[in-house]
C-alpha cells in the first residue's frame, strides 16, 4: 500500500509577527527619510508612513503579537516626533549633525570600550558568575593602563599593566563570589566602589593636582592606506584606533571559542548546569575563576582604551557608567558576542548623536546626553526581545 504524497502548498499568508516587524521598519523609514541624505522637507510622507506603521502594529497586536505590535506603534510615534524635529530644523543644521562618515567614526570610538567590557561580561556570565563589577574593572584598567604606559614608556606595557590590574580586581570578585558564595550583585557593587577609591587615591597620590602628564605613549590609529582618503569610507573607517579593530576581531574569535571549541563548551556547561559539569569531572571553581579573571582583563582593556587609546590622560571616574552600559549591551545582545557588538554599536551611536546635537544646540545637547542611557533602559525593559541568561547565572555553586 503506497502512501500517496500530498503536496501541501506552503502558506501564503503573512504572519502577524512579520506584519509587526514590517510596521517597525515602516516607522523607522518615516523618520529616516527626513534626515540627510534623503532630507524630505515636508511632514506628509512621514505621517503617511507612520499611519501605515501604526496600522501594521495594531494588526499585529490583534494577531497576538502584542510586544512587536506595540513596539511598532511606539517607534511610529517617536518617528513622527523625530520627523517633526528634522523638518523644523534648518538644512544646514541637519547636514552638520548627520555627517554620516563622522557619525560612524564617532560611533566606533564610543563603542570600542563598550565592546571589550561587554565581551568580558559575556565570558563571565557564560560561566555563571554575574559581573556587575565591570565598571570597576574598566576603571582600574583606565587608570593603571595610563600609569603603566607612563611608567614603562610604551602603550603596550600600559595595556599589559591594565590587564593585570583588571585581573587582580576580578580575582577579588571571583574570590568573594565563588569561594565565599557572596551575593554577586552586592559584591560587584562593592568592587565598583573599591575601584573608584583605589584609582582616585593613586591618581592623587602619584600625580597630584596636576593630573597625568601630557605626552604619554598612546595606542596608535590604524591608517588604512587604500581607502583612507576615499570619501565616506575613508572618513568613517580610515583612521580608527588599533583597539577598535582588535575589539571587533575579538567578537568572531570569542564566538568561535565559546561555541566551537571544547574549552568553550566546558565554560558554558559550567554556566548552564554546573552540577552536571562537576559530575563529569570539570572543576567548576577553576573554570569560573578563569572566566571572571578573563572578564576583568577584557573590561580593563576597554577602560585602557579610554585613557591610553583615546584621550591620553586620566581623570577621576573616567568611565562614568560605561561599564553598566556594557552590561546592558550584553543583556541586549542575549549573552552572545555578536549581539553584544551590535548593542555596543547602537549605544555608541547614541553617544555620537548626542555629541553632534550638542555642537549645534548646546542646551538640547544636554538632554541628548541622556540618550545612551534611555536606549539602555529600552533594551533592558526587553522591548527589543529578551532571552534568558545562562541557567546557573548568579547562583553560587555548592559542592556536595
Amino acid at each position, binding site marked *: 500500500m503506497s502512501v500517496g504524497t500530498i503536496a501541501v502548498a506552503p502558506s501564503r499568508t503573512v504572519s502577524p509577527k512579520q506584519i509587526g516587524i514590517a510596521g517597525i521598519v515602516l516607522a523607522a523609514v518615516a523618520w529616516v527619510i527626513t534626515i540627510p541624505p534623503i532630507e524630505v522637507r515636508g511632514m506628509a510622507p512621514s505621517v503617511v508612513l507612520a499611519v501605515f506603521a501604526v496600522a501594521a502594529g495594531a494588526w499585529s497586536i490583534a494577531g497576538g503579537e502584542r510586544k512587536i505590535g506595540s513596539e511598532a506603534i511606539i517607534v511610529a510615534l517617536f518617528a513622527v516626533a523625530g520627523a517633526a524635529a528634522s523638518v523644523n530644523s534648518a538644512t544646514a543644521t541637519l547636514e552638520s549633525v548627520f555627517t554620516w562618515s563622522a557619525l560612524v567614526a564617532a560611533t566606533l570610538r564610543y563603542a570600542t570600550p563598550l565592546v571589550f567590557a561587554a565581551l568580558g561580561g559575556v565570558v563571565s556570565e557564560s560561566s555563571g558568575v554575574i559581573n*556587575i563589577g565591570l565598571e570597576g574593572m574598566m576603571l582600574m584598567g583606565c587608570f593603571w593602563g595610563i600609569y603603566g604606559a607612563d611608567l614603562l614608556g610604551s602603550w603596550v606595557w600600559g595595556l599589559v599593566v591594565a590587564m593585570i590590574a583588571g585581573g587582580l580586581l576580578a580575582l*577579588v570578585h571571583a574570590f*568573594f563570589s565563588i569561594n*565565599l*558564595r*557572596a*551575593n*554577586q*550583585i*552586592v*559584591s560587584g*557593587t*562593592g*568592587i*565598583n*566602589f*573599591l*575601584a*573608584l*577609591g*583605589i*584609582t*582616585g*587615591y593613586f591618581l*592623587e*597620590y602619584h600625580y597630584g*593636582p596636576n593630573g597625568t602628564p601630557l605626552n604619554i605613549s598612546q595606542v596608535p590609529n590604524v591608517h588604512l592606506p587604500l581607502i583612507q582618503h576615499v570619501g565616506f569610507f575613508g572618513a568613517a573607517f580610515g583612521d580608527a584606533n588599533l583597539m577598535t579593530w582588535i575589539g571587533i576581531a575579538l567578537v568572531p574569535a570569542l564566538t568561535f571559542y565559546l561555541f566551537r571549541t571544547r574549552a568553550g563548551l566546558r565554560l558554558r556547561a559550567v554556566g548552564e548546569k554546573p552540577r552536571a559539569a562537576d559530575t563529569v569531572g570539570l572543576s567548576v571553581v577553576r573554570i569560573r575563576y578563569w572566566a571572571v579573571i578573563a572578564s576583568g582583563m577584557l573590561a580593563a582593556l576597554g577602560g585602557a582604551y579610554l585613557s591610553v587609546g583615546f584621550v591620553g590622560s586620566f581623570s577621576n571616574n573616567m568611565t562614568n*557608567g560605561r561599564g*553598566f552600559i556594557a*552590561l*546592558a549591551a550584553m*543583556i541586549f545582545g542575549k549573552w552572545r558576542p555578536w549581539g553584544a557588538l551590535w548593542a555596543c554599536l547602537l549605544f555608541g551611536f547614541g553617544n555620537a548623536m548626542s555629541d553632534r546635537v550638542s555642537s549645534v544646540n*548646546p*542646551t538640547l545637547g*544636554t*538632554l541628548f*546626553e*541622556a540618550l545612551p*542611557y*534611555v536606549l*539602555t*533602559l529600552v533594551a*533592558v*525593559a*526587553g*522591548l527589543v526581545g*529578551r532571552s534568558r541568561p545562562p541557567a546557573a547565572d*548568579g*547562583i*553560587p555553586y*555548592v559542592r556536595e
Partner: protein
Amino acid sequence: MSLLEEELHAEADESQGAAATSPAALTAFRRGASGVVVPIITAVIAFIAGGLIVLATGHNPLTTYQSIFNGTGLNWLFPWVSGSERATAATNLQQTLLNATPLVLVGLAVAFAFRAGMFNIGGQGQYTVGGIVAVWVGSSFNGMPSLLHILFAIVAAAAAGAAWAGIAGVLKATTGANEVISTIMLNWIAIWVGVYCFQLGGPLHNPHMSSTPVSNSVVPGAKLPVFWGSAQLQGLDVGIFISLALAVVFGLLIKRTRLGYEARTVGFNPDAASYAGINVGRTWIRVMLICGAFAGVAAALDILGWKFSLFTNDIQVSQIGFYGIAVALLGRNTASGTVAAAVLFGALLTGTSDRNINLSIDPTLVQYLTFMIEGMIILLVSTDVITLRLLKGGRQLRIALKRKPAEKPTATQGGAS
C-alpha cells in the same frame, strides 16, 4: 525561636543556593541573631584594611584616623573636651548630623527595597529628581505660610522621587526588567535632566545669575529652622528630626503593616509569596514608590535645610545615593542599623572633608579612602562568612555551655565551618 529551630532553619538556608544569598535572606540571618556586633566588626575590618592602604602609601594610619575622628565632631560627646576645641567640635558635629540626615533617608530607600528582594541602586536619581522639584517649589510661591510651604516642598519632592523610582518598579513588574540596570540608567537620566534644567539657558535656570548654572534660591519662608548653631554658618536644622521620625515610620511600616509583611515575604521568596496570594508585581511597584519617596524627602531636607539652591555641579558630583547603599547594607536594612550607619558615614564624610584643617593627610586622598572603605564594607556584607563563623562559633559555644556537665558535648554541630 528555640535554639534547635534556629539550627534547623540555618541548615535549610545554607543548602538553598540563590535563596540563601538574596539580600533579604542575607541580612535577615544576621539581623535576628547578632544585632549590632557584626556591623561593628564589618566596619572595623574595613577600616583596618583602609589603614593598611594608607600605611602602604607612606602615611601613618593612626594619626590619619585620629585626625579624621577629631574632624567628625564626635569628640564633642566627650566631657573632657572644652573651650575652643569644644566649639569647633560642636560645629563639626552639626555638620556630621547634617550629613547624616539625608543619608538615613537614602539608606532607608535602599533598605526597604532590599527587604523586598530588590536592589534600589537608583537612590541617586531619585534624590536628584526630588531635589529639582524641592528647589523649584521652595523658590516659588513666595508668601505662602512657612509651615505649609515646607510641607508642600517636602511632599512634592517625595512624589517626584516616588515617580522616578516607580518607573523602575513598573518596568520590573511588567517586563521583568532587571532593576539594577534600570535604576542605574535612571540615575544618569536624572542627572542629565537636572543639568539641562539648571544650565545657562535651561528652563529652571536662575535668570538673575546669568553666568552661573544654578537654580533659583529657596525663599526665606521655606527654609527649615536651625536649632543648633548659627544659621549663617550652616547650623543643624530640624530636618534631622523629620529624618529620624521617618526612620521610625520605616520600622513600623516593615513590621506592622500589611505592605511591610508582603514586602518581606516577596523578598524572601517571590514564588512562595505569589502562591500565598500576594500580588508580587504590585508589591514591587509599591515598594519602589515608597523608596523613591524617602529619597525625595532626603533631597528636600537638604535643599530646605542648608543648600537653598542647586548648581549643576552639585548634581553631577553628588554620590549620596551610593553612600546610601553602603549605609543600608551596613545597617542590615533595619531602621536602627541604618540610622547608626548613617551617623557613621556622616561622620566619615565630615572628618574627611576639606573643612577639617587638622587633617594630617591630603583631604582628596582621604575622600578616596572613604570610597575604598565603603567598597570593602559592601564586599564584606555580601557574604555570609563573618556571620557564619561568628554564629557557628557562638552557637557551638552556647550548645556546649547548655549541656549538663555530666554529658559530653557532641562534636561538630552545624556542619562544616
